[in-house]
């Protein structure tokens, strides 16, 4: 063929190659290439409460962090372990109700209820999800989708745990500043911890379970155990978020199992970039304020997210952070074939 064809070629940027391993310490330029994005993230999030105009928007930031914790768990499970959790509300409800019970019935302060609710809630959630772990991924998706719906109906029908009224009179945090910084701090901790985890040997095992679980079994490892560990981690994050939430709203009710907590994290992950752990945080930063702005439209906002979600899935777009990371690390050019 005499006609020339072109194709896109993507090459790592020079500075990315220069920052591999120890060479990152070569000069300030290389150091800042690596550290600047992370600093922007940390400083940006820590400064956020100060730049927000008023109490209402400060609360929005806290709620963003709550959603971000679920979304990080979803991203970790879906893209690094291969389990798609369609019911983030399950974790919120479990952690939330546990914290509320510990606080109102046993009088424990938020400083204690949150850690206990996190660990205990994660244990309960993992236990309830145990039957579907040895099975194919579809079953995990179905079961996680159903648990919040069914549990909400059970609580309503049996009128336990406060029924439709919920549990009132839950203590709040010491001050609104504590509230915000606990939430922001936990999000930052989770983001960096998970990004480190997926590069350790244990993280490699998780990725292998997603890639080819038969081979992992043939190597003498019990995949149900590792899936359970991953589910424990993700549900711990969700339960922590739920525990914080009830202390913010000073109330625990069926609305903890609301669809918002299941849909927004998925939409945030898809928009923000799946597989990056930090993409879901970005997605939440975008979606939750929009959700607040649309609050007067009632449940129409759920329609809105659902349609965005469908759009992103159907057109298979990669998400903001994935696009951003690629642009940051690589450049592309046309090459003659």
């Amino acid at each position: 063929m005499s006609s020339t064809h072109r194709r896109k070629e993507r090459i790592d940027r020079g500075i990315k190659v220069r920052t591999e391993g120890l060479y990152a310490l070569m000069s300030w330029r290389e150091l800042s290439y690596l550290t600047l994005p992370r600093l922007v993230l940390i400083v940006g999030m820590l400064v956020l409460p100060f730049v927000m105009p008023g109490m209402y928007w400060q609360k929005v930031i806290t709620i963003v962090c709550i959603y971000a914790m679920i979304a990080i768990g979803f991203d970790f499970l879906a893209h690094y372990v291969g389990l798609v959790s369609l019911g983030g509300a399950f974790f919120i409800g479990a952690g939330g109700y546990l914290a509320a019970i510990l606080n109102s019935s046993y009088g424990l302060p938020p400083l204690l209820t949150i850690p206990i609710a996190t660990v205990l809630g994660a244990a309960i959630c993992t236990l309830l999800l145990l039957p579907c772990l040895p099975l194919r991924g579809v079953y995990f998706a179905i079961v996680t989708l159903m648990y919040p719906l069914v549990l909400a109906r059970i609580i309503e029908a049996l009128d336990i745990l406060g029924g439709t009224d919920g549990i009132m009179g839950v203590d709040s945090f010491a001050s609104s500043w504590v509230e915000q910084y606990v939430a922001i701090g936990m999000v930052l901790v989770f983001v960096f911890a998970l990004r480190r985890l997926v590069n350790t040997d244990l993280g490699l095992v998780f990725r292998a379970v997603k890639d080819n679980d038969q081979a992992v079994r043939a190597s003498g490892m019990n995949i149900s155990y590792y899936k359970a560990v991953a589910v424990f981690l993700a549900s711990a994050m969700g339960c922590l978020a739920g525990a914080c939430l009830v202390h913010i709203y000073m109330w625990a009710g069926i609305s903890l199992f609301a669809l918002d907590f299941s849909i927004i994290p998925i939409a945030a992950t898809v928009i923000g970039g799946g597989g990056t752990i930090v993409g879901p945080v970005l997605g939440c930063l975008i979606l939750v304020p929009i959700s607040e702005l649309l609050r007067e439209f009632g449940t129409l906002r759920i329609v809105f997210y659902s349609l965005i979600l469908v759009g992103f899935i159907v057109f298979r777009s990669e998400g903001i952070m994935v696009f951003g990371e690629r642009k940051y690390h690589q450049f592309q050019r046309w090459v003659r074939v």
Partner: protein
Amino acid sequence: MDILIYGTINSVALAIMALGFALVYGISRVPNFAHGSIYVLAGFITWSFLRTLGLPYFWSVIITLLIVGFAGALLYQFILIRVRGMAISEIIASYAVGIAILEGLRWGGFRGMSYTLPVFAEGSVMIGGVPVDFHRIIMVLVGAGIFVGLYLFTHYTRIGLALRGMAQDERAALMLGIDSDLMAVVSMVIGAMLAGMAGILLLPLGNIVVEAGYNVLILAIAVCIVGGLGSWGGAVLAAFLIGFAQILTVVYLGSHYQMVVALLAIIFTLILKPSGLFGLQKQLEERV
């Protein structure tokens, strides 16, 4: 005796609800999580035709079925076809569409007691000393008719046989010249119409509430998992098992426990026999 009657009625209701989902999954392996929303949507459209446009009941039903069938085809052709094969994306996409429909209906003011569909016939009759209203009898008869009709369709017509072929082995069907996308559209249309029919049959027994959409989705999934994803006979059998279990708990424990029964049924099935009663995915048990 009344347990027998009510149990049968409940079981047939569950089977009608689940059949649409089981059919679509069995043929094209696409889990249609918008199933519950089509159920409610059909009720809403029929109501609109009846009250707002004043059409006679029979024609409202027919046109509604055509509309939901078309909606099912659209759902497949524009959304599901692009994520075909990626099971998780199919679930998320169809679930999101289902939620969009249901919450959209909720926002459209669709709540409260004022929306009902009239029953097909007033009055009741005594069967074995138990009062049973005509509508429920009609529902059982129509349900049985649907099952028989579906059986005949899939065993004796060309399209039905093609659908069964696709359900058994998609690759082999492709090699025989059966267009898998076309068959998937057909199965979605039939599945949507079945969901719509379920809505039309069952919604007159109560109010049209958006919550019913989620309930129907849960119950349909429960029935299909217990019966085995992909097996229609298993779905019917499971519907009877769960149906009777629900009635028994209503009689002996109280009427609040119906959802608990569904949840426990799923959990027990996943623990004891993951592929379900007549499950075709035996490899789930092959794993030691």
